[in-house]
């Protein structure tokens, strides 16, 4: 589904990703772990085409399409979803309105008709229940005045509504209490299907207790320095990232 080949990227003058390669097949969950500053969030931003993240080398193939040639919104419509580490507030724009616009854009891209408002409302309410969010959140401004946990649940709500094919979760566990972590993970787990791939970026192993990965990769200094199964995550938890220095060198 996703093939990243020798991807290098800069933020400003600084090189963050160096010849990073990674393949994600449909149905797989890949966890990306690593110390702060390793380039974990950069990967998500580069894959979604965020401005300010400059690709300096390599290719990214998404189901046969050259992902890097597409605009951010085109990538989204193709089915790439990024759950933000710090979801941004958009005052005055209701969640409902925002979600409908995003879904309509995606459906138009797929050649489908707009969903009727009634149908959409039903779907939105249902999804709300699934992530254990109060329906009043649908009427509030996008992330406006939401707590940290509410913002993350809102990300999962959007993910469930938009039904992407590749989900990138960027430090989704940061700042979550156990209860919120549980409902966020439940959301993700119900989304795990043979057609869908996941990249779960996290600093801690904690999240992986809830979302069990098929593969774990360690990102350090902009490249994957070690890959393994979920056992690798346990190891990292036990020993920290310090030992990586010797491996990288």
């Amino acid at each position, binding site marked *: 589904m996703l093939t990243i080949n020798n991807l290098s990227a800069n933020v400003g003058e600084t090189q963050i990703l160096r010849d990073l390669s990674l393949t994600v097949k449909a149905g797989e969950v890949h966890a990306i772990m690593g110390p702060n500053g390793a380039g974990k969030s950069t990967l998500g931003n580069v894959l979604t085409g*965020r*401005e300010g993240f400059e690709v300096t080398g390599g290719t990214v193939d998404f189901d046969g399409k050259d992902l890097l040639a597409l*605009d951010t*919104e085109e990538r*989204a419509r193709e089915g790439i979803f990024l759950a933000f580490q710090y979801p*941004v507030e*958009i*005052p005055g*724009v209701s969640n409902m309105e925002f979600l409908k616009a995003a879904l309509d854009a*995606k459906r138009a891209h797929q050649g489908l008709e707009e969903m009727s408002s009634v149908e959409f409302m039903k779907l939105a309410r249902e999804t709300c229940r699934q992530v254990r969010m109060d329906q009043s959140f649908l009427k509030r401004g996008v992330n406006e005045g939401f707590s940290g946990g509410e913002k993350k649940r809102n990300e999962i709500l959007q993910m469930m509504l938009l039904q992407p094919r590749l989900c990138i979760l960027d430090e989704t566990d940061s700042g979550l209490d156990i209860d919120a972590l549980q409902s966020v993970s439940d959301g993700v787990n119900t989304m795990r299907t043979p057609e869908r791939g996941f990249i779960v970026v996290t600093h801690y192993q904690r999240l992986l207790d809830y979302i069990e990965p098929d593969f774990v990769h360690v990102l350090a200094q902009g490249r994957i320095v070690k890959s393994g199964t979920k056992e690798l995550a346990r190891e990292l938890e036990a020993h920290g990232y310090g030992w990586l220095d010797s491996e990288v060198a």
Partner: protein
Amino acid sequence: MSEQVESLIRSRKEYAAGFHTSIDSHTLPPGLDEDVVRFISLKKGEPEWMTEWRLKAYRAWLEMKEPNWAKVKYPPVDFQKISYYSAPKSMDDKPQSLDEVDPELLATYEKLGIPLHEQEMLAGVAVDAVFDSVSVVTTFRKKLWEAGVIFCPISEAVHEYPELVQKYLGSVVPQKDNFFAALNSAVFSDGSFVYIPKGVRCPMELSTYFRINEMNTGQFERTLIVAEEGSHVSYLEGCTAPMRDENQLHAAVVELVALDNAEIKYSTVQNWYPGDAEGKGGIYNFVTKRGICHTNAKISWTQVETGSAVTWKYPSCILKGDNSVGEFYSVALTNNYQQADTGTKMIHLGKNTRSTIIAKGISAGHSDSSYRGLVRMNPGAEGARNFTQCDSLLIGDKCGAHTFPYIESRNPSAIVEHEATTSKVSDDQLFLCQQRGLDAEKAVSMIVNGFCREVFRELPMEFAVEAGKLLEVSLEGSVG
């Protein structure tokens, strides 16, 4: 600011209302003197007192100076180069019904999305259509008449209800109030008159649609709304003009009288031609709007200002009666080289009077948008309250957004609160929307609409939708 948004705002879609209607008109040659004032009065067949009223205003105007304190720049207006009267020839015979109205005129309004045939109209909205200097038609008059509501061109009201007009005309905005009000008082040609009798809740929305068509003419309409005790009315005005390289002047006066326990809701969707992307052409919109609230009365102004090259406008409330309420909700969007200096005055005279001001300014391109407001608590305004929130949104780094709130308090029991913020469409917000599949254009218009939400929800439903679309059009352009 991301490059996408830059290019997005650089060009805007063609001004949809910018067409010209080819129609034979009687247009007075440019120039202004006492004879012109008399001519207009004569043309309207006005009684002597009305002619004198106009002349008094004209003489006062001669002594006055054009105001220069607003944060707007424009070359001096040559008042002798403007024609002060223009009317379609077909209106000479004063058509008695819609069937007699020139189909060209009806087609013009049709094209603007305002069908004047009652069966085609939005149910529940009565329209007075003003074309250059005359009212073309006023719909639903019969239905309104049955409810006791008077809704007619003001030129007609002068004949039909002289005692009402004489009593209230100039009672809120005196002839000498300011330069443009004096000019309007001298040469106003038409506009709407509304009278809601005691205790009546007007059965439908009233609206006036103003259209400037002729070259080199000014439009000077006058609106007077009188809401008797305990009555209630919601009124909306809209305006458009053809695209022209020359600037055209629009100097209107609106007076509202809300007697005890009455409520007037006045909404404006202003979409005069704003000029082209280089700042050429466009309407100078110099307007005086003011209402007086008697005991327990309420006046609510809502305005969405997206058009005009230069806007100078401060819809105000004099809160004379105890417990009266004034509201001002405003969205002012400027793009390209537009300039808007707009806001309100809330003059608290009575006890426990309350006012709310919510002003949203959006500046894009090379434009300037200013909020200018006055909140005055007079010594008698025991227990009065004001809350003001002014927010500016900047799109791009070539525009300006300004806030000039004047607060004057002379009563210790009055409470005034004013807050102002400024923000931009952040790259983060834009990225979130794009990551969810929205294009930049849609994302910006969505964010801007969200920014304006508090104001839009004050508009009558049908017009809230229209206003939202208007913002989209105003910001629309090619995405680079």
